[in-house]
Structures are given as C-alpha cells and as structure tokens.
C-alpha cells in the first residue's frame, strides 16, 4: 500500500495497520535528508526520537490500542514552541542549545493524539520578520524557487510542508506569520481566533496577538490539527473556555446562503496585478458556485501596520527583557559587572531586527510617550476590531489577498525594514482584531509562484471559516500542485 498524501488519510491507514508509522516517518526523514541541505527548513531534526515514537505507535496499534486522531503522522514544530525532545532556539543565538524543561500545550496535544515530531523549523528570530531571513542560523529557501524567501516568520514550517518533508507543521502568527509563508509556499495556513489555542509554551513575541496554528497540505488536515490543539488550557489565562466545535465533520457549507465580503480599499495601491487577478478570480468562483458578493469596508485598516508596530513591539520589548544571559540561554564572555553581562548578552546575541523592535517598543512605553504611542495604538486597535464587527454584520467571510506579492527574492528587502513590514499589510488586521483567518492556495503567477487567498471570519467562527475554505478547495486543484524540486528528489 502506498503511503497517503494527507494527515487525515495517513492516520486512518496507520490505525488500520495498512501503513506503518515507521515507514511514513522514514519516508519523511529521507526527504529531509535529501532536500534540507538546499532548503534549510529545519534547525533541529530529532530522527531517533521520531523513529522510537513511530515504533511505539505501531506497537500500540498492533496491540489493539488507538493512539489517536493523528496516529503516526510526521509533523514539525516551529522553533519558538517549547519541546523537551529538541532544543527551542527561536532562531536566536541567545537560545542556541536551550532545551525547555516542559512541552508546550500544543505539543502535548499533538503527541497525545499520536503525532510524531520530526524536528524544529526555522523562523525569523523570535518571529520577527516576514521572510525567515532574520534567523541567526541562516535563511530558509522557498521550495518553489530556492532563490526566493518562503515568507515568515514561520518560513521553515511552510516550506517543510510544501516540500512534503512533513504532513503538517505548527506555526505561530502574530501579524501574519502563518498565513504569509503559507501563501508563499502554496500550502494551507490557519490563524485561529485569539484565545482559541493555548499559548503555554509558545515563546511570546506580542502576547496579545500571538496564536499557534497549523500549516497543512489541505483544508481538511488544517481542520484536523486545529481540532486537536484548540480548546481551554488552565495554564493560559487568555485561553478561551468555550467548547471546540467538531470542525472535521462539518466541512461543508451552504454556498447559496454564503455572503462573501470584498473590501475594495484593500485591492488598490501596492498590490501586484497577478495577485489581484487571482483574488478576483477566486471571488468569481464563489459567486459562480452560488454565493452572494457583498461590499464591505474596513476604514481603519490603513492604520493597521502602524498600530501593529507599536503594540507588538511594546509587548516584545517587555517579553524579550528576560533574555539577559543570567538565568538560562547563553551569555557573553568577559563581563565584569551585572550591567555588562546584560548589555553584552543582549548586544552580541540578539539580531538587528530584534534589537530594532525592542528599541521601538521601549520607546513606545516610555514615560511621556506612552499616551502618544501605546495608548493611541490601543485605541486604533479597538476601531479596527469594530470595523470587522460591522463588516461581519453583512458578510460571513471577508476575502482579501494574503500578501501584496508572491515570494520575493532572498536579500531583496533585508535592508529596507519598511518594505518588509508592508508584506504583512493584509494579515495584521486579523491579529489586532482577534478574529480567525486562513490562507489557502488560489493560483500561481507567471513565474510559477503560489498565490494565497485570505479568508477572514469572525472570532470563534473557525468552523465556518474552514467549511468555506473547504468549499473553495473542492472546486480547485491548486493545493494538489507540488514544487518541481520534489520530483527531482
């Protein structure tokens, strides 16, 4: 029996002893060996641990047990999510070699359902970036064109899924860090509503914006993984207590009653014409299937980037203050005083983008500037949230591009932080408003690079978000395309 292509099918056949978890795991590890020298998706591969886990799972299946909904599914974890099986570096020299003493809630959930962690994926240092180039351990390449970025910050996770090294990977999304790389790599990425998934064990960047979510090969697998990781956790005060609906068995929607919101002001300047055309085409496909198109307006969306870079950096400046070299992680040699120890560790071990954001955030919170920056940004955030609430009075989902362009060449924007920041212009609002959003493949540009479609739904409406995404996916085959490089492996 050949090994299935999706997590949903793989778990089913491993549970029925049709395929061994060990074989599926080996196949993925082999692909990592074959491709990761070129792509650099992984910062750490725990092959032995994975094979041992797979063997254990096969044994459990043989003994008549059901290891769970993700039985034998090889996965990867973004390296800002704590694991005891591998180091958690956050792509930073500061935490090179650091092994967490506990597993993140989401990792516990996945392993409890029989998933097999193969390793930790590359990212922009502490998730700060949109290209995975800000990793202290070198960039990841886009499997569709290795001269291009995979997007970021969860670039390693998206590229690993696109290159079929794993069936799924966890990413984290603070301003688009799951959706934008998913779009650049032609895979599905879901940013859950704020509070839907526990943040325990996710190394905080912008605590009020961060969410963990799945990056998968199709919508059904995204539903499956979200099902497993969503829900209350008594160790995260911001985690919501409401019950998790059955996503997997409710993936159909009544298209004739579906209202698709289109926001004209987001389809203007700065948007690549091929991306605009792909999004327009996707909208017309919905309409052709029977959905109603409605016009919505998000008047404060134009302030989202500015608002985000105050709130996220303010929180980051505080969240990253703990990395001093005193208690864990790395420190610089030759420090005489405690001040030198702090300064040298932070000065030498943090990257430029991280320092830039810490400085921005520190400034925004400083006495005399707080009202002008942080407080004002918090007010704008409320307006953006209200924009979405109004939009969702008339629309079930809002359709936008994920990013203004397809994947850009490595090195193109490293010296222009503002241009880099604008690659998140469509994704940031969802984090500020706490709503859920997904990126699904909706076509390719003339260079053969994937284009992503963003669907945004009200907070805690993941079920309808996934059902609408599934409806679109069932009419298209973009998600079935694989990067040319896979064929040569």
């Amino acid at each position, binding site marked *: 029996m050949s090994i299935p292509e999706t997590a949903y099918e793989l778990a089913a056949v491993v549970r029925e002893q049709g395929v061994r978890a060990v074989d599926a795991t080996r196949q993925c590890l082999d692909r990592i060996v074959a491709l990761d020298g070129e792509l650099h998706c992984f910062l750490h591969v725990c092959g032995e641990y994975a094979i041992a886990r797979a063997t254990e799972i096969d044994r459990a299946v043989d003994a008549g047990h059901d290891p769970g909904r993700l039985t034998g599914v090889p996965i990867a974890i973004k390296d800002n999510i704590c694991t005891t099986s591998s180091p958690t570096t956050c792509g930073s020299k500061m935490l090179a070699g650091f092994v*967490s003493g506990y597993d993140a809630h989401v990792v516990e959930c996945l392993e409890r359902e029989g998933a097999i962690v193969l390793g930790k994926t590359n990212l922009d240092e502490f998730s700060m970036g949109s290209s995975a180039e800000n990793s202290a351990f070198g960039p990841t390449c886009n499997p569709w064109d290795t001269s291009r970025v995979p997007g970021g910050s969860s670039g390693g996770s998206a590229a690993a899924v696109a290159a079929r090294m794993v069936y799924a990977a966890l990413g984290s999304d603070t301003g688009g860090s799951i959706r934008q790389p998913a779009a650049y790599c032609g895979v599905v990425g879901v940013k859950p509503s704020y509070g839907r998934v526990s943040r325990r064990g996710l*190394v905080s960047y912008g605590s009020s914006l961060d969410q963990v979510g799945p990056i998968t090969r199709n919508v059904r697998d995204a539903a499956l993984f979200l099902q497993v990781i969503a829900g209350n956790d008594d160790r995260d*005060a911001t985690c919501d207590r409401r019950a998790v609906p059955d996503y997997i068995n409710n993936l159909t929607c009544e298209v004739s009653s579906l209202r698709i919101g289109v926001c004209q002001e987001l389809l203007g300047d700065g948007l690549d014409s091929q991306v605009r055309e792909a999004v327009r085409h996707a909208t017309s496909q919905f309409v052709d299937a029977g959905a109603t198109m409605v016009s919505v307006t998000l008047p404060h969306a134009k302030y989202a980037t500015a608002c985000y870079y105050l709130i996220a950096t303010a929180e980051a400046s505080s969240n990253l203050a703990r990395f001093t070299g005193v208690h864990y992680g790395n420190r610089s040699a030759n420090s005489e005083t405690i001040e030198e120890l702090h300064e040298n560790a932070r000065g030498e071990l943090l990257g430029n983008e991280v320092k830039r954001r810490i400085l921005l955030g520190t400034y925004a919170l400083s006495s005399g500037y707080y009202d002008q920056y942080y407080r004002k940004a918090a007010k704008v955030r409320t307006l953006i949230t209200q924009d979405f609430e109004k939009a969702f009075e008339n629309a079930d989902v809002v359709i936008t591009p994920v990013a203004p362009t397809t994947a850009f060449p490595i090195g193109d924007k490293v010296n222009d932080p503002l241009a880099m920041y604008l690659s998140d212009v469509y994704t940031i609002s969802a984090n500020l408003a706490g709503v859920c959003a997904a990126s699904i493949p909706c076509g390719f540009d003339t260079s053969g690079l994937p284009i992503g479609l963003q669907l945004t739904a009200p907070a805690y409406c993941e079920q309808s978000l996934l059902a609408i995404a599934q409806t679109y996916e069932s009419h298209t085959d973009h998600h079935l395309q694989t990067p040319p490089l896979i064929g040569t492996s």
Partner: protein
Amino acid sequence: MVGARKPEAVGGVGDSVRTVVGLEIHVQLGTLTKLFCGCEVRTDAPPNSCVCEVCLGHPGSLPMLNREALELSIRAGLALNCEIAPVTRWDRKSYFYPDLPKSYQISQFDHPVAENGFFEFEVGGETKRVRIRRAHLEEDAGKNVHDTPGCTLVDLNRAGTPLLEIVTEPDIETPEAAYAFCTELQRLMVHLGISEASMQKGQMRFEPNVNVVITRDGVEYKTPISEVKNINSFRFVRDAIAFETSRQTDAWEADNGYVLGEKPNENRGWNSDRGVSDFQRSKEGAEDYRYFPDPDLLPIEIPSNVVARFRDDLPELPVAMRKRFLVEYGLSASDAETIVSCRATAALFERVVSLGAAADVCGKQFVNVWASLANARDVTIGELGVSAERIAELVTITVGGMINKSAVSKIAEAMVDGDASPTALAETMGLLQVRDTGATEAWVDKALSQNEEAVGEAISVSKKAKAATGFLRGQIMKLSEGKADPKMVGEVLEGKLRELRGE
C-alpha cells in the same frame, strides 16, 4: 530613641519643625502557593527548590492568578476601609535585576484592588486616623545571595510570592505614631488571617517616606523626601523617622537651599547598628518602569455582591474588640491586648464567659495560666485541647473559693494532660479548699496555742497587731497544708481574737 530633635533647637517665636511621614508597607499574603504559579511559598527550603518554569520566567511560561491571594487582598482592603475596585488589572513594571527573572514584576499600577481608605489606631491614649491611598497586589522578587566570595548567587524560591503593598497618605506626624500604626497594622493582618506578618521572616516590610516642614519667621520650608527602604522592625521605623527629622532639619539649617523641588528626593537605607540612615541613591531622573497592562492576564471583575459578602464576613477588628473587652468584661488594657492579639483566643474567651464564667477572673487565668501553658507548647490556647466548658468550670471553682490561686496552675496543667474536670482534679490532687468550720476552728486553735507571743501582739493596740495577725493567718494556712479557705480562716481568726480581747 535615636537623634530626636528637641523643640528648643529651633529659635524664634512661632518657629517650628513638623515631621511628615507616609508609609509604604509590603505584607506577604499567607497563601500556600505563589501568586501566579502552584509553587509552595516556603522560607525554609533549600535554594531554588520551590520553583517552576513560571516563577523562573522561562520562555513560553504564562502566569495564572492565585484566587486566594486576590481574596485576601480584598479582605485587607475592606478592613482598611477602602473602596474595592470593580475591575482590577495587572501591569508589568520593568527593570533589570538578577533576582527578577522576567525583568519585569507583575504588579498593579493604575487599577489597584483597593483605594481611598483609612486606618485608625491609638497612640498615647488618643485615636489617630491615617488615610490609606491604595493597596495593590504584586509578586515578590527572588534574593541575591552574596555569601560566596567572588560571585553572586540567585535564589528564586521567593520569586512570585504574593505581596500586598499598602500605601498611606502622609498623615503620620511623629515617630511614635508611626510605631503605633505599624504595630496595629501587623495585629490587623494577623487577626484577619491575611498574613502571618512575622518580622523575623520578613513577611512585613516598611518604607517610611519622610520630610520635615520648617516654619521660620512665618515662612514654611519643606525638605526633600527621603524614602527609607526595607525596614523590618517597628522600632527601626520609629528610629529612622526620628533620625531623618533630625538629619533633614540639620541639612536645612546648614543650607537653606535644601528644599523640596530644589534638591532631589532620595532613597536611604537604615543602619540599625549605627542608628543612622545611609544615602543609597538620588531620585533625580527617576527610573522609568514603563508600566503597561500585562497582556498575559485578563482584567478581573470584582462583583459588588462579592465585595458585600466579604464585608459581611469581616470580623470585629482588633481596635474595636480591645475597647469592647475593656468595657464589656472589665479587663485591664494589657489583659485585653493579650487576649485580643489572637482571634481564636479572643473567641474562646468570649465562649467561656458566655458559659457563665466571671470575666475578670477568666481574663486573669487566660493571661497568667493558659497563655503560658500554650506558649510552652507553641500553640494557641484553643489548641491545648481543653474545652471552653472545662475552662469555665475552673473559673467557677476559683471564684467559689473551692481552690486557691496556686492550685489553679496545677489543675490547669493537669487539664491539658487529661480529660478530667477541674473539680475532679482538685479532689484527686488534694487541692480542694476545706470550708468546714469545725476543721478551720481546730487549725486556728492549734495555731493560736503554738504562737502565744504573736497572739499577744495581735490582740494589743500596738502597731504590731496587723503584722502579727497576718503571721497567724499564714501559720493557719500552713497547718492546713493550703487546704483551708483563706476567707473563712480570716473570719474565724478575727472572731477568736475579738474573744481574747474581751470584746
């Protein structure tokens, strides 16, 4: 007292020096576990043994509020007559220090759990009122340990321990008032079970903010404010304020430019060995803590019905209870203070009295007999295992003259060791006083016949008569081996002496 300034040190009619003191007090709340994680709060554990990823500030760890700490702080706020915030919030206070693993402290900045209260206490027989500005919850830091040469070690057992920071308005005017305030506040915290409030364990720490207002030729001069950090003794609070009064007045006398606004406020440390405060740092260009709402914790709504319930549950507070014990039970001030200092003891006392025991004798026995038995065993009187009924019976047989004072302690001790009633114990231990007139007369007669000289003096009209009578009374008690009822002995003896005088 150290360095108190005498009023005559300042010359001129109408000239004066007035001390102004506000206090910041940190009270360690008596929860079993820390404020934001499940680690035990212990002061006696090996270094870094009561820690987890949350209080170590490890990457990805998140705080979860200990509800009990919030409840205790609401109760404390109510006892301090504060308004309880309908919504309270958590803020991060940022600074870098090795004992602060997250490099920020979770505290409360602009929405403290309690504000705008007052606290009354007695000083020199007068009731004083100090306004309470606010009381907020925060986590304690760890400890830097410097006892290894060449390196500083950090112990994070204390990190995350819940603290209530109480801030008063600058309403305190003398070192003695500060002393009385701190003492009474400590009693309140213990009384309400909010904190063990042990000074030795550092569970209560005081930071007086002191300056002086000097009036000279009708003009007022205010000196810069000194904050004396981290004092863990009532006496040191008093001494530090007295010293600061003196130091600041001298500083102003030496340089009239030493005034608030012109010269910076400063932090000082109290050196109890030398009886002086030492300069620590100037507050010029005050540190910017960059407070902002902690995004890891949600604001907490405190519904008014919960506040009402806590208010109803609030017990009688020590000051009121002491006053009532004076009036209602006729206790001495010191006996009332001793009994009220422990709420369980006070409750037991009231129960014993409600059973019909005479309050004054009961009070004496609590202070002189039961308290020492309890102290010797390191428990409260209630924990001695003696029921209120048996305690009441002991009072009753004492008042009834069945036993004498020295017998009370012996019987009480036996009551702790067994279940027998005090009456039965008095009997079996042979401590019952004999109230038989015949037996008493026999002892009196025997004593009189054995001490003719004393009898002669007793019946004379000399100065020695009183002493001789006392001597005879002692001899009679001795003959009875303490069993005679002293009152009856007195009556019989008086009768016999009257007969001998031929009256």
